[in-house]
Structure formats: structure tokens, C-alpha cells
């Protein structure tokens, strides 16, 4: 067995407990079935949306654009959200010093860790892209060979963007070694890179919108014109799509380009990783003292309640961990930025104007309902709530020892997790009010309702994590990014959010906007209070039995 296979195998076993008991495996299979069943409804909705999208494109003779969009989005998502995964698994795992001590080439260690991240990203890509390939194939009436090519293309898809994420992470590691505040550097670096992506993407889109009408018409008149235009921003996505959707020599040439770029990029990453990886990873283990003497002045030793102490501890632990910060804060702050702030920065955006014109004809209650829906969407990505207990990991013994009821401990965590949602909702509402001043009142009313709704969404995510916390992990990425509770939490909040939108729609259809606001707020507040009570009961019942 090769060094790579040995090192990869041991990490797979440690991560997924493949060598566990039969009972444990059965539980995992059972959980997998529950996730699949609950996910089918969402995947069904996703497939329905894709069908509408592809059918519309087919009618406009733009079907070629269809597969490119999900493939391009998939690659960009892996590129951006792969960075926390790479940082966590490659550079901040607890087993790095152990692996470094083994008589194994560092290239093998690098490759084994790279493929662990790849497996995770692949599972996410398959979930979203496989329906895209199937629906596209049905709409475009493709033969069976198309589906095989589609699956092969998805299997390769995460590789190239992950190589870029790895190279970006290697650069971050290289420069973080120069500063004493490595973690802060990585958190800020990660945010800057992500915001850079948003700016870059916006510039590309604004370049398209700046084309004259004649130029745009010329592009649109070619069946695959816009495909080429968008695909130019990331050519491998275009090669992948062409390799799948074309036939004959066109397909072969694009397969060649796609395979060459993917495998070539991995070879380059392997070459760099084999030379630089362990020195960068081990540098993270080195202690970096600031040499600042602690002061015991009164301002630093102010006493507070246990709930406040726990909420503050959660805040410190999240913002000081690049993995936690990038996973739980970046998505949440990026959504308002993507949806609202960037179009504002690009000046008079014709699309924004079109949305505004369209919205001016929409009845006020519907604006209120849409705003509730957008606000709930923000809350669905709060990974801090759905991993609140799992993040304790081996520190969980302390929660068992301190003389603070489990209910109180969990409420401290709830306040912090809800605060993330609250900041996101407030930021999003402010941006929306600036952009659509005519709808300020409805946006603000919806924001108030979602602030109440976020309490129950956060509570439900926490209940899921309390019911089955992942306390054994070897890297923070495993506790948060690769924790199935995050996916379960997302599913639960999507369902809850849909329920809240349905409620607000119901109230809006039967009453005046002021009354429907009061009714929606009352309903969401009742749900909030109920969920907080349930969370307390769950914490008392479950945490008592949990043993680290």
C-alpha cells in the first residue's frame, strides 16, 4: 500500500469512524436516510426551478447557457468556501504534528489532506449539480451518454477551484507567519479575498451591462454567445459544459482542455505542496507570544452573569478562529453585500432600476412578504447555531463541571447565535432601505418580524445540535464545516422560513398591512417564546446524559 493510501485511509477512518461499531454505523445510515428524505423535498424544489429555468432558456434559444450557470456557480462556491476547509483540514488539524513525525513524504500527507477536502466539496457539488445535469438532459433531450459525461464532469469539478483555494491558503499561511496575530490575519485575509471575489464578479457583470445595445444584441443573436461571454470569466467551467453537452470532436477537444487544466492544476499544487506544505502547517503550531504583560485593572475584571460570560466566550472563540469566523460570519455578511451593497457601489445599475420599476407596481403587502422571505433566507446559513454544542468538542467537560444549569448555558449560546442573525438582518434591512426608499416602512416592518422569527430558527438549529452533538473532532473545520448538523439546521430553517413566509402571506391576504404586521409579529413571537422554552427543556434533558 502506498504512503498516500495509508495516510488517507487512517484519516478517513478517524474522520468518518469507518472502523466504528455496527450499531454506530447503523445510526449513521439511519441519519443519512433521514437527511435524504428531508432533502428530497428541497431537491425537488431545486429541480423544479431548474426545469423552469432551462425551459425558458430553450424557448429563447439560449439553452447552452443553462449548464454553464450551475457549473460556474459550483466552481466559484468551491473556490470561496473551500478556503475555510483547506485552512482547517490542511493547516489547523490536530494531527499535523503526528503526521509530520511519520516517515512519509510530505507530498503524500498534502495529497491525503487535499483529497479529504475534495471529498467534502464533491458531496456538496453532487447534491446541487447532479439535478442540474439530469434536468438539463431531459429538457435538451440528450442521450444516455450525456449523463455519464455529466457525472464525470461533476466528479472533476471541485478539483480546480480547490487547487486555487489551496494556493490562496498557502499564500495566507506564508504571510501569516510574518505577523504575531496569525489568526486575525487569516480571518481578515479570508474576508478580503471573499469581498474581492464579490467586487470582481460585480465588475464582470457591470462590464456586460456596459455593452452597447448593438453589441449585446450581436452576442445574444449567437446561440452560445452569452455562454462564451460568461464562461470567459472562468474558462474551465466552459470547457466542462462543452465537454458534456457537445458531441464528436468538439466534445473531445473540450474534454482534453478540461482534463488537462484540472490535472495540470493538481500536479502544480502537488508540486508546491510537496515542497512547502509541512513547513507552513507546522509553523501554525509555533507559539507566537505578544509579550504583553497582563493588567489586572478593574475594567478587565468586571464581574458579570453566567449568561453574559458564555455569550462573550462564544463571540471570542468564533472571531478568533479563522475556520469558525469564515464559516459562520462570512456567508451571513456576504448575502446582504451580494444582494444589496454591490449594486449600489456600481452606481446606477439598470437591473436595479428594473427591479425598482417592477417593485413599484407590486402591492405593499407583497413587498412585506418578500422582505420577510429574504430576511428568513439570511438566517438559513447560521452555522454558529447548528454547531453551538459540537464546537465544545473536548472542552465539553467544562460545561459539565461548572455550576450553571445547562438551560442557562444554552441560552448564553442562543443570545450569541441570534445576535449574528440580528446583525445580518439589520445590515440587510439598512441596505434595502437605502436602495428602495419607497418601501422603507414595509422592509423595516418585515425586519422586525424576522428578528423575532430568527429566535426560533436559531433555537431549532441548536436543538438539532444538542440532540446529536459532534464532540469528537480533530479540526475545527470538522466541527463546523463538515458537521451534518449544519445541513440539518439549514433544512430545518428553510422549512421554518417557508412557514413564516406562508403565514405572512396569509395574514397579508386577509388584513390591512398594519394588521398583518401585528399578526405576523405576534405569531413569530409566540413561536420564538415556545422554541426558547423547548430549547431549555431539551438542554436540561439531553446535556445531563451527554458524556464527553
Amino acid at each position, binding site marked *: 500500500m502506498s504512503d498516500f493510501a495509508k495516510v488517507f485511509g487512517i484519516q478517513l477512518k478517524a474522520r468518518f469512524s469507518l472502523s466504528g461499531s455496527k450499531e454506530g454505523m447503523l445510526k449513521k445510515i439511519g441519519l443519512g436516510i433521514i437527511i435524504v428524505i428531508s432533502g428530497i423535498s428541497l431537491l425537488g424544489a431545486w429541480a423544479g426551478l431548474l426545469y423552469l429555468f432551462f425551459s425558458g432558456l430553450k424557448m429563447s434559444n439560449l439553452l447552452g447557457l443553462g449548464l454553464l450557470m450551475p457549473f460556474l456557480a459550483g466552481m466559484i462556491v468551491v473556490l470561496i468556501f473551500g478556503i475555510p476547509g483547506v485552512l482547517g483540514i490542511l493547516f489547523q488539524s490536530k494531527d499535523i504534528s503526528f503526521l509530520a513525525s511519520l516517515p512519509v513524504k510530505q507530498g503524500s500527507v498534502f495529497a491525503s489532506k487535499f483529497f479529504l477536502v475534495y471529498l467534502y466539496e464533491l458531496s456538496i457539488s453532487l447534491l446541487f449539480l447532479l439535478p442540474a445535469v439530469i434536468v438539463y438532459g431531459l429538457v435538451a433531450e440528450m442521450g444516455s451518454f450525456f449523463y455519464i459525461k455529466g457525472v464525470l464532469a461533476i466528479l472533476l469539478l471541485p478539483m480546480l477551484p480547490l487547487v486555487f483555494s489551496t494556493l490562496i491558503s498557502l499564500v495566507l499561511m506564508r504571510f501569516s507567519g510574518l505577523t504575531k496575530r496569525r489568526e486575525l490575519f487569516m480571518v481578515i485575509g479570508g474576508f478580503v479575498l471573499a469581498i474581492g471575489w464579490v467586487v470582481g464578479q460585480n465588475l464582470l457583470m457591470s462590464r456586460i451591462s456596459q455593452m452597447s445595445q448593438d453589441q449585446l444584441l450581436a452576442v445574444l443573436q449567437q446561440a452560445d454567445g452569452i455562454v462564451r461571454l460568461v464562461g470567459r470569466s472562468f474558462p474551465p467551467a466552459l470547457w466542462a459544459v462543452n465537454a458534456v453537452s457537445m458531441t464528436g470532436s468538439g466534445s473531445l477537444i473540450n474534454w482534453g482542455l478540461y482534463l488537462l487544466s484540472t490535472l495540470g492544476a493538481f500536479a502544480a499544487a502537488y508540486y508546491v505542496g510537496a515542497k512547502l506544505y509541512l513547513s507552513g502547517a507546522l509553523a501554525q503550531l509555533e507559539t507566537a507570544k505578544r509579550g504583553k504583560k*497582563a493588567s489586572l485593572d478593574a475594567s478587565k475584571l468586571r*464581574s458579570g452573569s453566567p449568561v453574559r460570560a458564555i455569550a462573550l466566550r462564544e463571540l471570542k472563540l468564533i472571531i478568533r478562529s479563522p475556520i469558525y469566523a469564515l464559516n459562520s460570519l462570512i456567508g451571513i455578511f456576504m448575502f446582504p453585500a451580494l444582494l444589496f451593497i454591490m449594486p449600489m457601489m456600481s452606481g446606477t445599475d439598470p437591473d436595479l432600476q428594473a427591479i425598482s420599476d417592477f417593485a413599484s407596481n407590486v402591492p405593499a403587502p407583497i413587498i412585506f412578504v418578500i422582505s420577510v422571505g429574504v430576511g428568513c433566507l439570511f438566517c438559513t446559513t447560521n452555522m454558529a447555531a447548528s454547531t453551538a454544542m459540537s464546537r465544545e468538542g473536548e472542552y465539553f467537560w467544562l460545561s459539565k463541571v461548572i455550576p450553571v444549569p445547562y438551560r442557562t448555558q444554552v441560552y448564553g449560546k442562543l443570545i450569541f447565535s441570534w445576535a449574528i442573525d440580528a446583525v445580518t438582518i439589520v445590515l440587510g434591512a439598512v441596505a434595502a432601505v437605502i436602495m428602495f426608499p419607497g418601501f422603507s416602512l414595509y422592509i423595516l416592518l418585515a425586519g422586525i418580524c424576522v428578528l423575532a422569527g430568527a429566535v426560533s430558527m436559531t433555537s431549532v438549529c441548536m436543538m438539532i445540535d444538542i440532540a446529536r452533538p459532534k464532540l469528537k473532532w480533530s479540526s475545527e473545520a470538522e466541527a463546523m464545516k463538515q458537521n451534518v448538523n449544519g445541513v440539518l439546521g439549514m433544512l430545518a430553517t428553510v422549512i421554518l422560513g417557508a412557514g413564516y413566509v406562508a403565514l405572512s402571506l396569509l395574514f397579508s391576504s386577509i388584513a390591512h398591512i398594519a394588521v398583518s404586521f401585528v399578526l405576523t409579529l405576534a405569531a413569530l413571537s409566540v413561536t420564538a417564546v415556545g422554541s426558547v422554552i423547548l430549547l431549555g427543556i431539551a438542554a436540561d434533558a439531553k446535556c445531563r446524559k451527554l458524556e464527553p
Partner: protein
Amino acid sequence: MLKLESVSKSYAGGKVKAVDGINLDVRNGEIFGFIGPNGAGKTTTIKMICGILSPDSGKIEINGRDIVKDPIGAKRSIGYVPDNHEVYERLSGLEYLNFICDVYGVSSSDRRQRMEKYLQMFEIADAAGEKIKTYSHGMKQKLMITAALIHQPPLWILDEPLTGLDPRSSMLLKEEMHAHCKAGNTVFFSTHILEVAERLCDRIGIIQHGKLIAVGTLDELRGQEKSETLESIFFELTEREG
């Protein structure tokens, strides 16, 4: 101060009996040493006393409070130092101690005075502002001890407290243990260093395969086993029971 009645704990669905019907009464003003071979059940017993693990059967009382029925009341009386050093590494030492003071309700003036005392005593005052991640093994142990003592609990539960400590800190901790017991409080600690147990403890309990095979003062154990040193008593007992 600490009472265990028929306490048992099993793992792997009852297949492995880690602690088997332990009865023990640790009195006020006493340093009690808990010794035994690796895997004998010391840490499991200690974790049950502190509320980290739940006993399958039996009763544990701390300062008159049942750890299962009144966990909060019982935990208030305990200062616990675990055998590992798993503590929030991204917090600074000072932030960790402040957190502990908040959850135990230590007032601002008390926490300042006690932090000064212990941080200086263990010579980690200069490092208190640094992240715990940067601490050495011994420094983490000193921080854990400080955190366990800062709320002045009547019962100290220390699992291998001397591991990783430098000789000076080790001596100071032993002096603190003596002073604590002189004030009428109790120390219950596990150790592998038999000489320390011999010199420090008022009474000693020896655990083997989850069962308490001997309890008593050193003189009582000597009388039972006809051996002079704790080391020879320990080997005789554990080999006979094994």
C-alpha cells in the same frame, strides 16, 4: 465532605465495568490520595464525583448535596483539575479565569486579589494576557489549578495535579493543599507518584479493576499488609488482586 455509596459505572453497554460498587467517605480537613494502576477506574470515579459522568448506580454526596439530584449545589463546592489540559486555547489565561469567576459568581474585588495570589505564586502572571494556545504543558496545568481554586471551593478534586509542574510549583501546591485542609476543607487527589501520596496524604485509597481494594491511613495499610513503604503495599495489593 465527600461520600460515595455503592457507586458503579460501566462502558460499552455494561460489558466493561470501570467502577464497581465503590464506598468511600472522605472527611473534612483530610487530604485523601487515590491511587491505582492505569485503567483502574481513578479518572472515571473522579469524573463521576464532578458530574462529568453519571453513575449507573449508587449515590455521590458532596458537602451534603447529591451530585445527581442537586448538581448545581454540589458543583459549587468543587474545584476540579482534570488530568488533561483541554481548555479554550483561543482565550487568554486572564479571559479564562474571568470566565470561571463569572460562572462561579466571584466578585470583582475577590477575583483580582485571588488572581494576583495564584498567578504570582505559579509565576504565570506575565503570561496571563497571552492566548492559552501559547502556554507550555506546565503553564496550562498551573492555569487549570488557579481556575480550580479561584472560587475557594471547600473540596478540591485534583486528577494528577503534579504532572507537568516544576519542582517549585509542585512544592507550593502541596503547601496550599495542606493549608486548605488545615482550614477544615478537603483535598481528594489521584496520583501515580507513590512517594507524594505517602508523604502528603492523611488517608489513601487503592483502586484496582474498578474496586476499592484498600482504604486507610498509611499506618493502617502497613498494619494490614506487613509492609513498610506505600510502594511495597501497593504492589502486594495490586498483584494479589490482579
